[in-house]
């Protein structure tokens, strides 16, 4: 059994440096505000204080990783938006598919420090990791009975989680799927990305001639996907539709995109093929747009070839690169922009780069149409694309 595309999206939730709920995030984006700053939640001995985008005013409970707590926050908003309470959820087979990069990694620094120092460290940090697998935490918190999957496709994880959850709905694996991504800031990713020399020591500038790299961020976003049968039974409204999903691997390099963007091209083509939608229907693209020289070059080249003249932007100038959460946060932003008929300016961009295939929008820009594309490129050569549409696009 494989149900046809599209798949209804009935609820959205989001938390990131731009705001602790979706409305606040959108207000921040349209106002053009951003406030990257040196990390406050951890220290570093780097002589340069690389800016990050922290979620301020959010405290995780001691028993959970911050990643999972951020994820739960976004799920609660998404379920409320979908009108799904605990009693309704218990009558349904609900799956959970969540992307992350650090949420399932066995890498507690203090534990390792103590172990290397010849101590017998407290096991609590490891036990916290073991009970904090992001998808499992959500299933446990809401008593969900369906399949549970934590996707670790690096920076494409959030986009893949949404696409895979749609696949579960299409296959009748579950009635409802909670899908998205979550990731927290920490010293390990901070030092790791700096070591790769792809981190900007000033606020990031996606697609700008003077871009120097990314700023890390943290956050989570979740989407509620529903089968048509379930939606009909509970008379829920579709806020948006997932019209297609595509993914492909560059098979080129562990940390660099293929210069010709081959994998991204395949992924875009597959996403279009799901609903038979053509490039002309796309009103804007929410690009991966990390601000690294390689990513933005490849992405702009592919967009210029496949979607010439279509406005594009990167929202990472407002959120930082939230890694496994990025694709989900950007999917939620994309839907909110479609609903409002307006995209924010691509924060950090001011100087066109003649080597790129195009330039992003500079200020808030009206868009017409019912379809938009959100894409993610990741370590490992993963490229993932989702097509999102308003109710009229389905």
């Amino acid at each position, binding site marked *: 059994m494989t149900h046809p595309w599209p798949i209804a999206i009935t609820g959205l939730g989001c938390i990131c440096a731009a705001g602790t709920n979706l409305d606040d995030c959108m207000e921040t984006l349209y106002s053009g505000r951003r406030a990257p700053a040196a990390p406050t939640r951890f220290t*570093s001995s780097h002589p340069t204080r690389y800016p990050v985008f922290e979620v301020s005013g959010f405290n995780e409970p001691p028993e959970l990783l911050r990643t999972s707590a951020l994820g739960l926050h976004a799920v609660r908003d998404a379920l409320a938006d979908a009108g799904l309470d605990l009693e309704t959820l218990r009558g349904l087979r609900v799956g959970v598919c969540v992307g992350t990069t650090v949420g*399932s*990694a066995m890498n507690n620094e203090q534990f390792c420090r103590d172990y290397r120092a010849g101590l017998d460290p407290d096991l609590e940090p490891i036990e916290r990791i073991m009970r904090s697998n992001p998808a499992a935490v959500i299933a446990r918190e809401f008593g969900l009975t369906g*399949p549970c999957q934590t996707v670790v496709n690096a920076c494409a994880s959030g986009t893949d989680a949404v696409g*895979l959850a749609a*696949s579960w709905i299409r296959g009748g694996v579950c009635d409802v799927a909670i899908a998205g991504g979550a990731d927290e800031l920490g010293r390990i990713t901070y*030092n790791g990305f700096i070591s790769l020399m792809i981190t900007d020591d000033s606020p990031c500038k996606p697609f700008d001639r003077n871009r120097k790299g990314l700023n890390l961020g943290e956050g989570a976003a979740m989407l509620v996907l529903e089968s048509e049968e379930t939606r009909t039974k509970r008379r829920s409204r579709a806020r948006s539709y997932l019209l297609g999903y595509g993914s492909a*691997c*560059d098979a080129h390099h*562990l940390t660099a995109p293929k210069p010709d963007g081959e994998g991204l091209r395949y992924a875009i083509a597959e996403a279009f093929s799901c609903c038979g939608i053509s490039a002309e229907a796309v009103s804007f693209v929410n690009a991966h747009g990390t601000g690294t020289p390689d990513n933005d070059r490849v992405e702009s080249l592919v967009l210029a070839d496949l979607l010439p003249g279509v406005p594009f932007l990167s929202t990472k100038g407002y959120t930082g690169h939230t890694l496994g959460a990025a694709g989900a946060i950007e999917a939620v932003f994309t839907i909110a922009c479609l609903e409002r008929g307006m995209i924010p300016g691509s924060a950090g961009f001011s100087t066109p780069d003649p080597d790129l295939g195009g330039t992003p929008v500079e200020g808030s820009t009206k868009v017409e149409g019912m379809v938009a594309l959100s894409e993610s490129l990741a370590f490992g050569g993963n490229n993932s694309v989702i097509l999102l549409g308003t109710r009229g696009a389905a």
Partner: protein
Amino acid sequence: MMRIAVKGIGVTGGFGCGVADLAAALKGGISRVSEITVPSAQGPLQMPAFRAETERLDEFVPKRALRRIDHYSKMGLLGAYLALADGGMLGSDLSRLGVVVASGYGATATTFAFLDSIIGDGDICASPTHFANSVHNSAAANISIMLGAKGPSLTVSQFDMSVPSALVSASQWLAEGRVDAVLFGAIDEVSDLIGYLQHRQRGPQRACPISPLSTGEESSIIGEGAAFLLLTRKDDSLAYCTIETVDTGSLYQEELSFPDDALLLLGADGRRELGARYRATVPGHSRVACYTSIYGSMPAAAAFDLAAAALILQNGRVYPIPGAAGCDMDGIPVPLETTRICALKLAGINEYAAVTLSRLQLP
């Protein structure tokens, strides 16, 4: 669910390397347990572990190409190449191949090495090579790069439930027609961290065989390895078996039901608390088998279970069950024949997965 054919198997683990070594170990009921030394506050700890070798990777990849690839990815690469070779797809057009990798803990040795670079030398000396290779999808990426596989790629990390969870998505890819084949595998490795945690959480380790069906005692031994299956949509060509259903989720008040005619292949691995869950879950009249004492305790063991099930179904006869003498479950071990197997995996307090596989109906 659409039926899926298991066309190839590629394995490396404590029992050896390749499907013939796995079959021999299952038939003989024995595997090679190594001894590892793990640093601890009390001094070096000796403990048993099932270690996997990757020398046979030389048959497929020039040594030079492996210089920057860690042991974790090498195990995955070897499993992937062996599965493709076993399924007759090595050298074929792989443009419609998907790659799915499940891992409970990822590349823990490399993750630890990255932390070491910071702890030992300061933040400014963080190792970019270790960082890049510690990312969870590094093995899937290395497999795709080496094979030139440009289809979709997925890595899942769901601790003990990683394998069945990933299999749900792999099955959907085939059902949707996104790909014509999936290279589906699982990898986990033994490292200082994993060894130390085993010692702290499970107490002193002894080199006695795992007694997975003896639910009252702790007998787990950590293992490492890679188990890959080449999956396609069912057709008329030769295959080991078919996968009929993949059911996974969490149980609250519900009880699991199993096909009456199926042998239950249990994922019990000597961990006492999980043994108790298996004992409570498996119906008394069931026929049961368990082979984790061949490959050890690790999240990836669930993929070895699928490989063992495929071999049993191909042959039609069940291998002897190591440690059956100590069985204190209600189920009946030592069945002789079967045409259907339900691989049962339990984890945590309520997570479950049941993968049903069946023998091919020959024309």
